[in-house]
């Protein structure tokens, strides 16, 4: 394959896969899934329950994708960690977990669409939810796959296409024969690898920068090295929030970070179908309560670490990165040696020429901490002052945020850790992908096929599930292969989480806590949530809309219908769609006939 993959690497990877397989095989022989624990009337250990949930929650998208976004945007992303713990663990387990578990068991629901459909006595609601999962979850799976693939490319030096194919084959081998069963001990083993990798990564990063406070302080002092394009969006440094305001392009970053990343992903987790069903497999409220501490610490490590390390990678590269050379374009702070430098390469001995950015076809300019100056000549033989120095992480990642974490790991950390980190990513990807494809399979087999044909028969339904899983896998690989634009991993994840939140959250929460929520209210709310979100993505949100292309056709070349109104094109659809969907649920429910009392008593028994 490639010289970068040594025989030791191969043995360690094989050892990991065999251990996972062995644990899965052990699981098959005895109690393996949460349902088995429940059937046996026994309790899964809270650590097993929490780490298994966390391993499903956290994927390569969080570690590589959002870690890279933190490398670009800075530590303001720690608000997402805060919301992930507060909402994704504390609120989800303490407030939503038990009502979901009880309602699911009262109604005999086994999938998220089935839970909604049974609560609202509506085939339409169930089919709607199943179709959305089948159509859009591959977007999230693609983000997870791309996250793993870009690291394989950086670590082992193989082509993206080869790495993606390998990743897809490992995924298929894992999810098709057995990984779908969500063997809890396998998930837990994978979670433990993730914990070990993150603890070491955090320790290494802080210790290589002289400790917690010196590391943060150095990053703070680098604020003037923020690339000009990010500064124009409102970036004030990696330890500062973006500039807040409305009505000027200088506030774009604040609206991107807060609406798309923090709200979209932070709230969206509550309505993730593959996570909601986990509550139904829990034995009791007590088990949910006991899982909260481990879950919170797990998420703190799993998302807090990549966001901190992503941000701090800028300080590491500025102190220890490979020396870059170029010619000063503009002095930023002469006392600190900070300058804007046009990067150069040696075209022939002693002669230097500018490095051309392939995207812009212009000379590459980068902020730099200047370490030395020397006399040199340009390509024409004219004298120039050549400076050498180091830059923030995004320069070493060639402007691609998705590359920041992989480049940092392969450059800064010992090679053996690169392998451990690869296993961590493999673990994070597999534990998430298995539940994603399980959800896709059951959405098609149980929620679409059985409901639409009206033939709940096991054999054909299982066959349909398997076909759906293969189609979902192919869709994910196709998306990963074709879309590799800037921070696509985080964006795909945010799109899927936002869609789920706007479409499902009002109907789900209303279904759990509000007797008056009606079938018509739920259907209307889901329709409004989905249609507003999709319309916004197609026509308003510039990055997504311009990639799809419809908006250029409608407006004659603009990237958003609101391109002339600053900030609107970066606002995430969740900010508009979720309140509208909620309002629709309330209004339509109040105006329509409530469900019959007998059904409501089944959903909400008095004792």
């Amino acid at each position, binding site marked *: 394959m490639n010289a970068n993959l040594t025989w030791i690497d191969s043995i360690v990877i094989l050892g990991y896969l065999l251990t996972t397989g062995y644990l899965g095989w052990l699981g098959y022989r005895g109690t393996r899934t949460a349902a088995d624990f429940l059937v046996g009337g026994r309790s899964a250990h809270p650590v097993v329950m929490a780490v298994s949930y966390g391993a499903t929650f956290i994927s390569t998208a969080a570690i590589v994708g959002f870690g890279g976004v933190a490398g670009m945007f800075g530590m303001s992303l720690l608000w997402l960690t805060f919301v992930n713990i507060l909402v994704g663990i504390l609120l989800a387990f303490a407030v939503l977990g038990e009502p979901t578990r009880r309602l699911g068991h009262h109604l005999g629901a086994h999938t998220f669409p089935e839970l909604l459909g049974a609560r609202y006595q509506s085939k339409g609601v169930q089919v709607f939810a199943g179709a959305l999962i089948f159509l859009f979850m591959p977007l999230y799976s693609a983000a997870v796959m791309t996250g793993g693939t870009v690291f394989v490319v950086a670590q082992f030096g193989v082509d993206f296409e080869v790495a993606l194919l390998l990743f897809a084959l490992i995924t298929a081998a894992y999810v098709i024969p057995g990984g779908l*069963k969500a063997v809890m001990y396998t998930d837990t083993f994978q979670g433990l690898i993730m914990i070990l990798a993150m603890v070491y990564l955090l320790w290494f990063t802080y210790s290589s920068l002289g400790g917690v406070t010196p590391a943060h302080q150095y990053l703070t002092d680098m604020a003037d090295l923020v690339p000009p394009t990010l500064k124009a969006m409102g970036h004030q440094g990696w330890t500062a929030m973006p500039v807040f305001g409305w009505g000027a392009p200088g506030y774009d970053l604040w609206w991107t970070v807060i609406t798309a990343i923090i709200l979209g992903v932070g709230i969206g987790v509550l309505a993730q179908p593959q996570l909601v069903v986990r509550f139904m497999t829990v034995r009791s409220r007590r088990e949910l309560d006991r899982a909260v501490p481990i879950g*919170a610490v797990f998420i703190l490590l799993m998302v*807090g670490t990549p966001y901190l390390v992503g941000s701090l990678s800028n300080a590491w590269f500025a102190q220890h990165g490979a020396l870059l050379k170029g010619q000063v374009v503009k002095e930023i702070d002469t006392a600190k040696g900070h300058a804007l430098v046009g990067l150069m390469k040696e075209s022939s001995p002693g002669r230097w020429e500018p490095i051309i950015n392939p995207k812009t076809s212009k000379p590459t300019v980068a902020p730099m901490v200047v370490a030395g100056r020397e006399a040199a000549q340009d390509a024409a033989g004219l004298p120039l002052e050549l400076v050498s120095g180091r830059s923030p992480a995004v320069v070493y990642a060639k402007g691609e945020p998705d590359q920041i974490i992989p480049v940092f790991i392969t450059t800064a950390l010992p090679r053996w850790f690169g392998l451990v980190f690869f296993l961590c990513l493999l673990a994070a990807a597999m534990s998430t992908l298995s539940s994603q494809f399980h959800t896709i399979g059951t959405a098609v087999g149980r929620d679409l096929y059985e409901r639409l044909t009206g033939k709940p028969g096991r054999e054909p339904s299982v066959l349909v599930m398997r076909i759906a899983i293969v189609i979902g896998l192919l869709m994910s690989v196709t998306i990963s292969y074709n879309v590799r634009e800037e921070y696509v991993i985080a964006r795909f994840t945010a799109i899927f989480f936002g869609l789920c939140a706007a479409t499902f959250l009002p109907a789900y929460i209303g279904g759990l806590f509000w007797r008056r929520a009606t079938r018509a209210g739920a259907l209307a709310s889901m329709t409004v949530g989905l249609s507003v979100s999709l319309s916004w993505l197609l026509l308003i949100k510039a990055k997504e809309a311009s990639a799809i292309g419809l908006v250029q056709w409608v407006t004659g070349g603009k990237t958003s219908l609101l391109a002339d109104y600053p900030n609107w094109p970066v606002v995430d659809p969740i900010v508009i769609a979720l309140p509208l969907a909620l309002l629709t649920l309330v209004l339509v429910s109040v105006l329509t006939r409530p469900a019959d009392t007998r059904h409501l008593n089944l959903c909400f028994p008095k004792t």
Partner: protein
Amino acid sequence: MLGIPDPMVLAAFLGCIAVAAISVIYGLVRRNAAVDEVTREDRAWAIEEKKVEDEL
């Protein structure tokens, strides 16, 4: 404080640790507070779930 001059980012940094600590305390305080019983309905649900998983 801690080399982070922006109070909002510092609040996020400390808030992550604080909310994790609150979660730990919550779990410890509530570890035996809720009823822990498996009803006939719970078991019936699990048997059906197991069937679907086994077939898949």
